[in-house]
């Protein structure tokens, strides 16, 4: 429908509150039409970044470009962006129709056209029958749709969503997630979406930027971030359960960790201490591996998570499609395919490239 969706660049964006630095030199390039997710734990700076994109927050340094035009100092209303707030921020004294039509009324669109556009937007999010109600008479899910309709009604160049699903119950969240993805695809509007829920990020995003402590630690497709996490922190944040991390010593093509010598794909010329990471899904019960005892088997119906404890008291988790044929308390050894190993620098936490 629209070819006006914007490409966005953030260049060396800094944000401080007094002496507290919230964002350290953020660089980001978002392609037109992309569904881009800002993912990170709370307090990592992702919402601040979104608010900077919206123009609701002034930057302390750096600049923001939309389609190559510097918009750093532009007011929120001059950027042609629409936002769905976590609280939805609906106007409680207006009807649903008035809420959705408000941005059009503000640009002086004739009433008849507003009515048509409101109906159109409301139909897209399936709330056409609620137009005469006020937000107080709606359920949480319906309110969320009204907020969505208000954002899409004026066909913005950039669409910002701040944890829009966090106030919905689990079932509704799944349904809405699907609807949201479909809607974004049909509108083809550049979308920036903030969440701390990695599952949301993985399922919705074309690309993800992972935020940690005011820095972007990795940008990539969901697959890249899952399979080649840039740091130990990202590895520990993505995946349920998160990656197992065991300290070890890397020499040649093997790592000595947890009392076993384990083969890895990369080789190190000189011996060095590393952190060995293996996804729970890649762990196997295999001879010659790390000796452990089975602590607990959790059956999730379609999969099973088994917790083991090694000689030094560390917890190691394994995820299988079927329940393993071991009993709690039994002693086994754990291994993995050499290409499943992730190696991180012991001190900096950064991923180690093949040497």
């Amino acid at each position, binding site marked *: 429908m629209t070819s006006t969706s914007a490409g966005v660049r953030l260049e060396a964006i800094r944000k401080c509150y007094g002496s507290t630095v919230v964002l350290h030199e953020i660089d980001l390039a978002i392609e037109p039409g992309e569904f881009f997710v800002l993912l990170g734990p709370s307090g990592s700076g992702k919402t601040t970044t979104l608010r900077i994109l*919206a123009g609701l927050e002034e930057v302390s340094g750096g600049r923001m470009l939309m389609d190559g035009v510097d918009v750093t100092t532009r007011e929120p*209303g001059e950027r042609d962006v629409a936002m769905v707030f976590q609280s939805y921020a609906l106007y409680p004294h207006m009807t649903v129709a008035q809420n959705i039509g408000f941005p059009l009324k503000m640009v002086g669109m004739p009433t008849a056209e507003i009515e048509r556009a409101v109906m159109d937007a409301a139909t897209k999010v399936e709330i056409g029958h609620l137009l005469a109600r006020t937000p107080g008479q709606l359920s949480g899910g319906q309110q969320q749709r009204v907020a969505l309709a208000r954002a899409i009604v004026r066909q913005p160049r950039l669409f910002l969503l701040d944890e829009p699903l966090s106030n919905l119950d689990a079932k509704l969240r799944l349904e809405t997630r699907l609807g949201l993805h479909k809607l974004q695809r049909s509108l083809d509007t550049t979308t920036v979406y903030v969440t701390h829920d990695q599952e949301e990020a993985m399922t919705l995003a074309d690309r993800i930027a992972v935020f940690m402590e005011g820095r972007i630690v990795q940008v990539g497709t969901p697959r890249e971030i899952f399979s080649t996490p840039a740091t130990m922190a990202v590895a520990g944040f993505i995946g349920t359960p998160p990656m197992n991390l065991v300290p070890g010593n890397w020499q040649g093509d093997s790592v000595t960790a947890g009392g076993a010598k384990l083969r890895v794909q990369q080789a190190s010329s000189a011996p060095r201490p590393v952190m060995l990471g293996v996804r729970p899904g890649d762990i196997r019960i295999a001879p010659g591996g790390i000796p452990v005892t089975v602590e607990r088997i959790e059956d999730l119906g379609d999969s099973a998570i088994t917790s083991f404890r090694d000689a030094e008291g560390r917890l190691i988790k394994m995820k299988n499609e079927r329940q393993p044929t071991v009993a709690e308390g039994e002693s086994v050894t754990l291994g993995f395919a050499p290409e499943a190993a992730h190696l991180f620098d012991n001190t900096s936490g950064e991923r180690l490239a093949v040497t």
Partner: protein
Amino acid sequence: MNTGPRSAFRYIVLYAVAGFGLAVWAFPVIWGLMTSFKTERDVLAYPPKFIFTPTLDNYREVIFGASSILPNLWSSIVVASGATLLTMLFAVPAAYALARLRYPAKQASGFYVLATQMLPPVGLIIPYYLVLQKIGGLDSYGGLIAIYLTFSLPFAIWLMVSYFEDVPFEMEEAALLDRAGRLRALWYVILPQVRGGIAVTTIFVFLNAWNEFLFAVVLGGNQVRTVTVAMFNFISVEQTQWAKLAAGAMLAMAPVIIIGIFAQRHIVKGLTVGAVKGGGRR
């Protein structure tokens, strides 16, 4: 629902206490109402008469007679409405700024607003008198209204700030993103949500100005004599005309009571707004 004897007893006690409180509170009003229909002779009768032949003479006198308070009611209407209008005109934007904008010394200015309420009014009379005398503002509507502003404005700002603070920031940000700009965001989104607060504040400011006596008697005069001052004139060294005073008081109360009845819903809602976060907002 428990309707046993214990609960019935509770209700009796409750109503008794409430009834006693009401009687104490309402007695002066009822006494005033009775007095306004008595002759001066009946007023001074001892023991006080509860059964008497009512007369409308007092009302006739204070409305149409030589000591008619109609011009004074007019003065009061002008002064109270003028002061209220100006107060709200300045207080609403000021309170919005105090509640929303981040600027240096915000805390201090908020405290300053409140601090002006701490001065005893009597300490201000002489300075005010001298100032008004210098600028020729004695016995003028402008002068009295200006003086009323000095204490109604801080009060109104202070009251309105809490209402503005109750409106979530995000709602305003949403309006800004919807291209409303600050002024239209205020007009279309914020003000409708503080309607109740504006109503309550307007009523309080109006009532304060309407009932004000101290400044009106000192700073007013023959041109500007509010109804509270006019009633004071029924009391003189030789004689106090209690019945006329009561009739005047009843007339002066009428607008206040009418406003009170119409605004009751707003006032009760407005007073509880700070108690529960968002409780007064809908």
